[in-house]
């Protein structure tokens, strides 16, 4: 028996019905609420199915066949299981990122695209996102022990980079760095093993997976934070699929331990990133070998490419940027990346509306000593006076006007 989605009322509640499958077990399934705006042309699909969009050959993220299915696929299976749904895949190679999204999710060939940016600007308003569930970013890879306090520590050494990536651009725009360019990250890793490069600065998940599966974890991997280096991945769904998004959010929350296990299994770099410039506010030495994947190290807006770190900007802007960077590292767990919070009580863009001329002193006190009764820790020791001032500067720059 298959139950087809027939609900077409806008904002129809998620309906759960019981059904019997062939084995006689009761399985919960639900109608995906189709709002009018989401009713794109496309075949009706079984409501007991989670249709997942994925790249068929993109480990460690996803793969259509083989023993390793990738973090996204394994996670999608877990998510589907928690939701009592079967899973089904729309495979599409993602050589061109937007095209892949257009041809799968937006073409109504699938409903959940794992691994899209947690960024309201991505694909405009046609895509909505769950809360982020994974951090991904670039990392420096090198022989153990790899002591790294800032990027300057690899100055003068031969650094293997991938063509067309942030590290290639970064090293090209900073004096004193020597890069050796490769088309693929895997080729750069192989060059490292052959001694054609001293270290590598590559996409963390790819390098980590290669290191784990091909090199037996021989190399140390240190994530690097900075503009255009670290992101957060969410699940993208089509506009109007709000109830699906809500369900995914709930289940992803429950699956946090499993996500960490998967990240470890596929060799995703763990530990806190080292900031590019060794800025204040970083934990050092990085916490390594922690069982849980460190969430949210740095989220920079990917909507507008901003000047790469190290590029000249006015001093004021620089401090605001620094503040934003600190904010995203330490505060965005609860207050959302870039302070763009959907939850009004945690939305720090409303501080000026709330406290008016007392905003700065109120916020300063809250950050310094915390509001322990509301779950807000004290940040004085971690951020330091200068760090707090920078965060305040950033917060002032994002205040809503009355």
């Amino acid at each position: 028996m298959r139950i087809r989605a027939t609900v077409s009322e806008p904002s129809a509640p998620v309906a759960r019905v019981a059904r019997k499958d062939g084995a006689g077990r009761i399985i919960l399934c639900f109608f995906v609420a189709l709002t009018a705006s989401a009713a794109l042309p496309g075949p009706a699909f079984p409501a007991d199915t989670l249709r997942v969009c994925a790249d068929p050959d993109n480990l460690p993220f996803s793969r259509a066949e083989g023993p390793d299915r990738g973090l996204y696929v394994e996670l999608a299976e877990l998510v589907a299981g928690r939701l009592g749904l079967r899973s089904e895949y729309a495979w599409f190679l993602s050589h061109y990122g937007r095209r892949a999204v257009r041809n799968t999710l937006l073409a109504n060939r699938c409903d959940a695209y794992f691994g899209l940016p947690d960024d309201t600007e991505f694909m405009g308003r046609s895509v909505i996102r769950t809360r982020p569930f994974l951090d991904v970013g670039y990392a420096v890879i090198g022989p153990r022990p790899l002591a790294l306090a800032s990027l300057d520590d690899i100055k003068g050494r031969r650094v293997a980079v991938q063509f067309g990536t942030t590290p290639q651009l970064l090293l090209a725009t900073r004096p004193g760095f020597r890069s050796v360019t490769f088309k693929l990250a895997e080729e750069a890793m192989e060059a490292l093993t052959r001694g054609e490069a001293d270290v590598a600065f590559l996409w963390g998940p790819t390098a980590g997976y290669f290191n784990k599966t091909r090199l037996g974890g021989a190399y140390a991997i240190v994530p690097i934070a900075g503009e255009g280096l670290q992101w957060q991945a969410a699940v993208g769904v089509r506009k109007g699929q709000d109830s699906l998004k809500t369900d995914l959010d709930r289940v992803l929350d429950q699956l946090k331990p499993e996500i960490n296990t998967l990240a470890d299994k596929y060799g995703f770099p763990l530990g806190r990133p080292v900031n590019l410039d060794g800025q204040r506010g970083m934990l050092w030495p990085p916490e390594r070998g922690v069982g849980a994947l460190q969430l949210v190290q740095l989220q920079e807006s990917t909507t507008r490419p901003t000047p790469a770190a190290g590029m000249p900007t006015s001093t004021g802007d620089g401090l605001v940027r620094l503040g934003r960077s600190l904010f995203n590292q330490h505060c965005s767990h609860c207050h959302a990346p870039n302070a763009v919070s959907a939850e009004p009580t945690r939305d720090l863009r409303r501080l000026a509306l709330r406290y008016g001329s007392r905003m700065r002193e109120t916020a300063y006190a809250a950050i310094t000593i915390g509001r322990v009764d509301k779950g807000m820790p004290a940040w004085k020791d971690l951020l330091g006076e200068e760090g707090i001032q920078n965060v305040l500067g950033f917060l002032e720059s994002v205040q809503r006007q009355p």
Partner: protein
Amino acid sequence: MKTFTALLVVLMLAGLASPVAAQTGAAWSVYGGDNANTRYSTLNQINASNVGRLKVAWALQLGSLRSQESTPILVGDTLYVTSSHGPKNVFAVDARTGEVRWRYSPEVPAGIEQYACCDVNNRGVAHANGKIFLGRLDGHLVALDARTGKELWKSQVIDHTGGSVITSPPMVVKNLVITGFGGGEYGVRGYITAFDQDTGREVWKLYTVPAPGEPGNETWKGDSWKFGGGVAWHIGSYDPALNLLYYGTSNPAPWGGAIRGNDSSNIGPYTNLYTASTLAINPDTGKIVWHFQHTPHDVWDYDGVNELVLVDLDIGGRKTPVALKADRNGFFYVLDRRNGKLLSAEKFIDLNWAKSIDMTTGRPVENADKRPRLGFKAKDICPNLIGGKNWMPMSYSFQTGLVYVPTINLCMDLEGMQPQYKRGGFYLATEFDLGKGGPGGHLGEVMAWDPVKQQKVWGNKDDLLYLGGMLSTAGGLVFHGDLKGWFKALDAKTGRALWQFNTGSGVSAAPMTYELGGKQYVAVVSGRTFAIPAFFGPIGEKMVAASAEGGTLFVFELPTP
């Protein structure tokens, strides 16, 4: 009697033209009409007085939809035409009736559209000595038996899974068949390869970006030459008298200038040779004889690939062998094709990224605030990345001495590009406004351009871009299509439309004409562009709304009296 007169005119005109400046008569045996890419036919049976009566003789469904860009060729009484998507089909048809003689339908790798950067188009085939040569999206060059369509050999030019595909017909020179490929942004060092026509064996390979130790390598910062782009994805030209093969090369890679050089209008040594350039190549050796760079240290995606039209013009009282190029960067170049000397360069569209071309150095005099840099967004740059003219070929009329150019009038905002999306990497949200209407409100214009005076003679403005390639004839006519599906005949002197027919889908492909059994035919392929509008936001929506996808070859004739 009529035929005799036509023949006489053909002979007279042929006699007037220099031996190198080719033009075509009854046959149309190469993509551009001739290897000089003039797209001019001496046929005049169809002319201003009767073109109003033109009607469809027959049509051929090409079997694929979207982005048809093919110009058929005529060999004997057979017309050879390709569809898009691989190509999905190559047809050999009776040029009188459209009856299919054979069809070649190669296995197109699954998901090919996921690799092709800029759509799954194909522009046609080349012919020599009983063989049809075809470049495919999967990066292979094949030879087919012209009589049967049987595949004779297949050689790999490039691995398409890296994002490089072949979309244009190869060049046939002596015993060689020569091709480049497209997709220069995706981590490749461009090259042009010559194969033996009989065996498919590689004869030479010319890298368009020099390696260390070769002259020009010093124009690249660090090891950026390794993936410098500079691919030759459009049609080449050939001058048999000079024995020179001409190709244009694409933009350098990656888009952002910081990796390749100074990322500034103060370019210094980092011009990034030989990208965005015209190359003159000795086809016997595969060596560069001269080069001319149109856009040094390009950051606008101003590919220099547009076709070179080889004609002899009266320059300063002297008949001079020249190469004409309406570059994507918006300047119309006249080069001495013997040595690459710049004879003149003028703006053919309203552009602002440069003030002029310095006649001593050949370099553009840039407006620094229109050069996007890392951390600097340049606004309202004209033209936009699609250029003042894209691949849609122009035509030179030996009758009027004018060039007919399908131009584009768009502008853009652009910042020094951040790294591109990589599979396995992260989806970046970098968005720029690439499709802003240019000054004047029109988005395209068919232009008659005097290449000697370097000025516009007339122009037909259009509310949409992507006007089709051009054909001019001794009948005093210019033919072209548009995005709404109209196929038009214009008075070559005035631009006045004399006839039009709606093909039902956008026409970007360039038309051709031929004579068979004493009758002149005009042929054009219809099928709207599909992937390009995705770049241009609301303007892209207008493009999509202009007509449905399609894939049809239409052949026109005059009614029998």
